[in-house]
């Protein structure tokens, strides 16, 4: 890569010296500790609550649904989820009551003395049971949302193929497992306003939720993000719940209330990745061209609607992959069960449908006896082709080059053949290599960005600094650093002179949620525009010349402030012309742009222990301009590691809707000892969107690892499971079942 120099992480020194303040590092005078009293059953009617003797209940603040001053609802998309359950229970861990007291240990003890009397009724815990309406647990039919995408005529496309191959695939839940658990501190002050500090991704979502619960105007609700120890989507919607709870306890006790979840509580009740099920029917002609794709896609949304419709939307749009197929139908549903609601997790529905499609590509290639890479090359999108939603691809994805790079780096095609010979000589350890070819839409879907209408600001101070004002949060991904880079280059000043304001709804405008790989591309772009407009203001007024030094810049801004009081530039998102999206029919430009990628894995499968080891992993992607190579690589490496876990080790074990392995000992993420080597490469060709041409990358790395790894297992063994996670015991079962049949 060319020699450029890059700033170190803006908040890096304070993180490395232990000075950064995360929520549990803050203590307020007179602060109470809050806990939640939860249902142990998945479904039922609340008959009563009793407070058993042995506790001095006078010492505790107790909040129930009847204490809620506004609406008893957690506002997301539909208002179906109560803030506190008052009549019905819909999932294990649902909160009925809140307690706060001086000492955390004492409140935890008191919680054991609250008895919930719940008349249990049977719950449902699978997509199949929900679709079959074994019990109707939500609405009239258990369906949160349904989409159909149609391109061409799928029946015609299917009959045009010389072979039609069907397959069913499934993926499990996955825990985000940020190392910092959920936590907030809330304070309801005497003037009726509420302030919440917390570990969260989207301050304005939390503000909106609190406004409903307390019936307050925006100026009475302030939400401040504290340093956040990882999110990955897990801190997108759930903070609205814990914040409302802590705020209710504070409202009643008139004291600040801290609420920090334990690891087990966090794993059991907060949102996880949606489990999925896919049925694919694919028709292929003699030349290996896909003539028709019929894709049925289902997500388990859990007990309440939350974000499931949006997750489903992304999964649905990504289902047909980066392939040019004339006849497509994707039909999808998000259904209700009695699991705790599933939510956002890096990739947001796309990893699920991409797993199914990319596994199916290898299953089909094997059936047809074509090389899986050749099969993909025949079908990949090129510039001018259209996606399943009919979006014409305006840039060349360059898949052929991505495939050649994989070959160069891994000897892919050579190995995919030679391993077969090598494996014959080795009865125990079988080697395999596999890949996945995929795209990921950057930013919100369709007209999402226009609805958000994000605002970003820049303000010069008298003492020679410019402050970036945005509600986009730093959650480890490097938003602060990217913002200071973008602002410094747009303003022509050094990064040291740019300060990124802490996201605080009382001080920064709503730049939209920190999700959907949109922060660099969409918010960064607005920031670049705000910078140019600030400079042009200074030039127009004659304070600044065409060419200037940093000193001249601040002299000019100082004069401007003296004369006009302040120097600011706020920019709001406007949809670029030419983008068309039909929300009704799911047709048109689903995303402003896409990142294009090929990921490949080499594995060793031990047929005695059933262990699968990833020996090498290559991640190649075209992401436009790479703003900051170290940060970008870090995003991809971290995402791939999560993807490897998704495929091979991270299994949520359920019992009646409750996660049974809610500890880091038995829910297994990779440690440094077992993470594979992850080699990351960027292509920077299509620089048409975002600041300096940078596309979004945060979620991309979650999509490819699982199908690449299981495809490598197929290469090693001849066949491989259609599901993930694939732990050794799962592979054993699979191999025993296939040897029987």
């Amino acid at each position: 890569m060319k020699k450029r120099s890059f700033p170190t992480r803006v908040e890096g020194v304070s993180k490395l010296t232990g000075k950064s303040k995360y929520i549990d590092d803050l203590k307020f005078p007179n602060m109470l500790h809050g806990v939640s009293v939860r249902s142990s059953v998945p479904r039922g009617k609340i008959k009563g609550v009793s407070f058993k003797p042995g506790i001095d209940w006078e010492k505790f603040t107790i909040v129930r649904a009847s204490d809620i001053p506004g609406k008893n609802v957690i506002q997301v998309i539909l208002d179906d989820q109560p803030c506190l359950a008052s009549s019905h229970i819909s999932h294990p861990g649902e909160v009925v009551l809140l307690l706060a007291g001086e000492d955390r240990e004492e409140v935890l003890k008191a919680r054991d003395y609250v008895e919930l009397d719940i008349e249990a009724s049977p719950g449902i815990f699978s997509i199949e049971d929900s679709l079959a309406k074994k019990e109707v647990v939500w609405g009239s039919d258990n369906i949160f949302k349904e989409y159909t995408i149609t391109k061409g005529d799928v029946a015609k496309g299917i009959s045009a193929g010389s072979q039609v191959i069907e397959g069913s695939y499934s993926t499990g839940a996955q825990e985000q497992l940020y190392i910092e658990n959920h936590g907030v501190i809330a304070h309801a002050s005497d003037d009726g306003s509420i302030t919440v500090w917390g570990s969260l991704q989207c301050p304005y979502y939390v503000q909106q939720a609190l406004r409903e619960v307390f019936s307050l105007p925006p100026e009475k609700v302030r939400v401040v993000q504290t340093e956040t120890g990882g999110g990955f989507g897990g801190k997108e919607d759930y903070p609205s719940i814990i914040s409302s709870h802590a705020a209710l306890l504070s409202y009643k006790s008139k004291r600040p209330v801290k609420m920090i979840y334990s690891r087990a509580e966090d794993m059991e009740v907060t949102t996880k990745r949606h489990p999925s099920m896919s049925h694919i029917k694919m028709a292929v002609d003699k030349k290996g061209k896909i003539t028709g794709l019929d894709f049925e896609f289902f997500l388990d949304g859990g007990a309440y609607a939350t974000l499931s419709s949006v997750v489903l939307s992304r999964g649905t749009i990504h289902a047909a992959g980066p392939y040019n197929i004339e006849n497509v139908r994707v039909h999808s549903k998000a259904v209700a069960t009695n699991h705790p609601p599933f939510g956002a997790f890096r990739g947001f529905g796309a990893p699920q449908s991409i797993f199914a499609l990319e596994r199916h590509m290898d299953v089909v290639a094997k059936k047809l006896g074509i090389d899986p890479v050749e099969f993909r090359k025949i079908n990949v999108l090129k510039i001018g082709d259209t996606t399943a939603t009919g979006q014409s691809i305006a840039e060349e994805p360059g898949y052929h080059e991505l495939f050649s790079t994989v070959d160069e780096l891994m000897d892919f095609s050579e190995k995919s053949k030679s391993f077969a010979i090598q494996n014959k000589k080795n009865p125990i350890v079988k080697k395999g290599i596999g890949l996945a070819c995929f795209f990921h839409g950057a930013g919100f879907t369709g007209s999402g960005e226009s609805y958000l209408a994000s605002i970003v600001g820049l303000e010069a101070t008298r003492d020679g600094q410019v402050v970036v004002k945005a509600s986009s949060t730093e959650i480890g991904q490097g938003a602060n650093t990217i913002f200071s880079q973008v602002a410094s280059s747009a303003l022509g000043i050094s990064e040291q002179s740019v300060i990124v304001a802490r996201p605080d709804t009382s001080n920064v405008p709503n730049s939209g949620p920190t999700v959907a790989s949109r922060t660099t591309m969409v918010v960064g772009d607005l920031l670049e525009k705000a910078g140019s407009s600030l400079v042009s203001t200074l030039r127009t007024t004659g304070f600044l010349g065409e060419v200037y030094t940093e000193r001249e810049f601040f002299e000019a801004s100082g004069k401007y402030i003296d004369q006009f009081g302040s120097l600011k530039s706020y920019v709001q998102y406007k949809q670029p012309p030419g983008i068309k999206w039909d929300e009704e029919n799911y047709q048109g430009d689903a995303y402003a742009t896409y990142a294009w990628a090929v990921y490949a894995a080499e594995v060793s499968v031990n047929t005695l222990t059933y262990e699968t080891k990833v020996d090498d992993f290559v991640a190649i992607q075209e992401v436009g301009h790479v703003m900051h190579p170290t940060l970008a690589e870090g995003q991809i490496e971290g995402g791939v590691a999560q993807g490897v876990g998704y495929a091979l080790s991270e299994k949520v074990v359920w019992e009646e809707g409750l996660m049974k392995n809610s500890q880091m000992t038995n829910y297994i993420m990779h440690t440094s000892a077992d993470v594979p080597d992850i080699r990351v490469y960027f292509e920077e060709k299509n620089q048409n969107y975002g600041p300096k041409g940078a596309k979004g990358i945060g979620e991309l790395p979650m999509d490819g690892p699982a199908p690449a790894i299981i495809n490598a297992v197929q290469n090693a063994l001849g066949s491989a499971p259609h599901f993930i996670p694939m732990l050794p015991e799962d592979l054993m079962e699979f191999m025993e079942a296939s040897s029987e049949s």
Partner: protein
Amino acid sequence: MSHKEEFTLKINGETKVFLAHPMERLLDTIRSDENLTGTKEGCGEGECGACSVLVNGKLVNSCLIPISQVASSEIETIEGVANSESLAPIQKSFLENGGAQCGFCTPGMVLAAISLLRDNPAPNLEEVKTALSGNLCRCTGYKKIFESTLICSQMEDQQ
């Protein structure tokens, strides 16, 4: 906790006396009593390593250790790693090589790397992987943490 005793600990070079229940977790002594909040709690069960500190030079999970067990010991936390003017070489290396993202595992991870480099100033990649395996990081995929540690070990005055 009712029954309290006096314990003397040396924390980051300073001698401190605590009146605490013998079973009080060292993590709470450090975070609550001493207000050194750089040491984190990620699980409270000895699994994540976010609470790692050095006790008499040895890396331990402070969430598992009662104060009575470390009476009269020397404790090093992340706050004692840098001096007032500059970062320690390992911190500098993490900063320059992308070893910290969300930063929550970072204090523990830095102490784990320090503990390794003191014992083994020139580790190879496998030794780094093993030495850090008690510290979970969900953000980085570890690669940049390995690099930060290895690059630091190659710098002139690493400790």
